[in-house]
């Protein structure tokens, strides 16, 4: 069986790759494109560590086939900062110590960005339910929620 040829736009760059039919987008990002920022914590869509934005929608890249991405746009954690300017969420995660081990952080940042893009001024409850698809085992979520609140405030010019 030969590989499938796929072309897509990833973090603004036009990318072409070959993948096997059963390979997931996460496999492709990590193993074929060297984009290891998305992590595989479970492979079953339960932890959110592999979160990316596919055609504007937040998805678990472990539950998308690499072949499905033909013609699509993908945004990953590697594209979140603009040059050396961090996104406010990245800055606030650092300032609020919203990470301990950091393995869940790329997924949380992608999910938090999708949340704020859709709802710029969320309540604490909306943040907590909006991020329920991302597991963190280190922090108890407290500092993550505070960092998202602080980032929302900053983005909204507060």
């Amino acid at each position: 069986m030969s590989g499938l040829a796929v072309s897509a736009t990833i973090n603004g760059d036009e990318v072409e790759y070959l993948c096997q039919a059963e390979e997931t987008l996460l496999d492709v990002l990590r193993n074929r494109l060297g984009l290891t920022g998305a992590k595989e914590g479970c492979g079953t869509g339960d932890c959110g560590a592999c979160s990316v934005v596919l055609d504007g929608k937040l998805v678990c890249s472990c539950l998308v086939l690499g072949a499905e991405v033909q013609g699509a746009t993908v945004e990953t954690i590697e594209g979140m900062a603009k040059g050396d300017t961090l996104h406010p969420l990245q800055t606030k995660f650092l300032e609020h110590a919203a990470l301990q081990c950091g393995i869940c952080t790329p997924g949380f940042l992608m999910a938090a960005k999708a949340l704020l893009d859709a709802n710029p001024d969320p309540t604490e409850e909306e943040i907590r339910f909006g991020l329920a698809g991302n597991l963190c085992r280190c922090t108890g979520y407290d500092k993550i929620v505070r960092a998202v609140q602080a980032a929302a405030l900053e983005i909204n010019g507060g």
Partner: protein
Amino acid sequence: MRFDATYQDRTYKSVGTRPVRPDGVDKVTGRARYGADFNMPGQLVGRILRSPHAHARIGSIDTARAEALKGVKAVVTADDLPDLSNGDQAHHDLLDNCMARSTAFYDGHAVAAVAAVDARTARQALKLIEVSYEVLPHVVDVDEAMLPSAPVLHDTIFTDGVDPRPTTSSNVAARSEFGHGDVDAGLAAADVIVERSFKTEQTHQGYIEPHACVASVNSDGTAELWVCTQGHFVYRQKCADLLGMDVSKLRVTSSEIGGGFGGKTHVWMEPVALALSRKAGRPVKLVMSREEVFRASGPTSATSIDVIIGARHDGTITAASAELRYSCGPYAELWAELGAMTSFACYDLQNVKTVGYEVLVNRPKTAAYRAPSAPMAAFAVESVVDELAQKLGMDPIAFRIKNAAREGTRSSYGPVYGPIGIRPTLDAAQAHPHMHAPLGPNKGRGMACGFWFNFGGQTCTDLNVNADGTVTLAVGTVDVGGSRASLSLVAAEELGIPYEHVRAVVADTATLGYNDMTDGSRGTFSSSMATISASRNAIEVMRSRAAMMWDIPVEEVIWEDGHAKAIGASYGNLAPLSVREIAEASGKTGGPIAGHSEMVADGAGVSFATHICDVEVDPETGSTRILRYTVIQDAGKAVHPDYVEGQYQGGAAQGIGWALNEEYVYGADGRLQNPGFLDYRIPVCSDLPMIDTQILEIPNPSHPYGVRGVGETSIVPPLAAIANAVSNAVGVRMTHIPMSPPRILAALDARTKG
């Protein structure tokens, strides 16, 4: 120079501030490299074949068809990992756990492994390995495993610690006992006695990063291992031992680690990766799936505990006793012993006795999980303490204060305490607004105390002063949650330079001396002590270089505010020399400037915490919501308060999951039913409230800054605090963790039916 670790009161410039961590930007941009994020040229994909049976004799393993598959480069079985243990039982058990020899002892036990050119081929190859099993009777429940009728895992196990030695083998590997005084006499003197039995189910650390490594063995016998671990020096030693390698020939690099909590203190599949690489002659990457993590890494013990405590009407505890039965998986360890040691450590008791039984079952080998064994013992003891307070009509905090251990108390496990923080945490709890907030219907409040020993251990650190006056700090304790920031603060404090001038890195095993693992809450305690020592040694070097630059006796040079200063009236016109000025001149004054430290960090102060929790229970469904949670814990000295708070909050959150929902569920066939994050339910963001923290600082007399470990104690009180809260909310004493909705509803129904 001799290092004086005695605590000295001082004011701090850097320690106690909250700067951004040095590894932070890498972690928010996806650049940080974890276990599975590393690759080597020519790397193969490894996979492990695991037993589907809870207990089975392995007849034969036919690997011929797998080996013949195109793209398969190596297949290994126990034959490729010969037993070099030479009578060392622990070594043998470790090897047996990495690759089953004659018997598979649990669902998920490794029986063979392959290395192939890609994941698809490796998957196919696993299916071509033919294993013939003779399925044996199994036992997974800790109490059932102790019955005379239970299938015995090893006919070589005769309970240790029992005199005379039993004549028949059993699953009870060892008995341990602690305490002092006369419990029977103490109970006879009691006015009120509460006696109860408890059970806790097996839980997993639940780190988000599955185990992952890349192993590369060369034809000359040298090897490299890239791995996510809590202790790369320990992994090096274990892998070298198991594979018969010289320690010097194996270089282990710890990747960034995506959580461990004790689960990454043992080798699991790393020796297998090395064996595959040795056989294939190519690097091999081996990454566990989440299912493998649950089935075949090291969860904590399931337990069964009996507690009896008696007290007089005035609230004085007259006697306390506990019997603790802890599951160990298939190999003998000391988990019940730790439970027995910690059970009553919070209290000042005249008559106390604890007995622990290590029980072998057909479950994965138990590993440490954050303050291992203490949360379950605290659940049982603090539940009875709470009930006793109620029966005495006393406030639960006042009752605990009356019986709290203090400086000079002989602990239930032996040692006499120095200055400790149990009383201050209770005082703080009593004064906390949380304890006095009103509660509505179906709501309950609980509180509980917890204890952990903390640990120090072997530590080696290098501090190099660079030519521009900045500092590179090389430590050998893995950073699991911000310790590079804390250690940079300590070096900055000691040297008197800005935090930004210090860069802490975790060195690999070839570039630094041995370090114990990041466990026992030792990371910041021991490495900060070593960093202080290394800094002071570097200061000595810089003083001598300054003396040389000034051409004055070194005794006339002091170190102050990050500068060498000449003392005495005759040198009054010498401007102080900064680290940078001294470093810039180092090429002419004797070469590079460095401070080293090698030590056994003694005196890790014991740690105490008190937690308060409010819950709401839906009486129709048994569903529990955590409404409010407060952690009060002694940190000795909080070096980086953000990360101290983070440890408090993280421990509490793990405890909440354990208390309410997390458990290993086995089917009648002995297979794990929920090896995934869907049905092994760790708390999600919407399950939790903000977790309030209060850091107390009762200095540890054996650390220059008074630091105590903080990482583990925070998981000790939650099971009990939440159980007390739920029990208070529903009016039924909950004795089985997790208090899942079906268990709560069943308890409510039982009460209704009377």
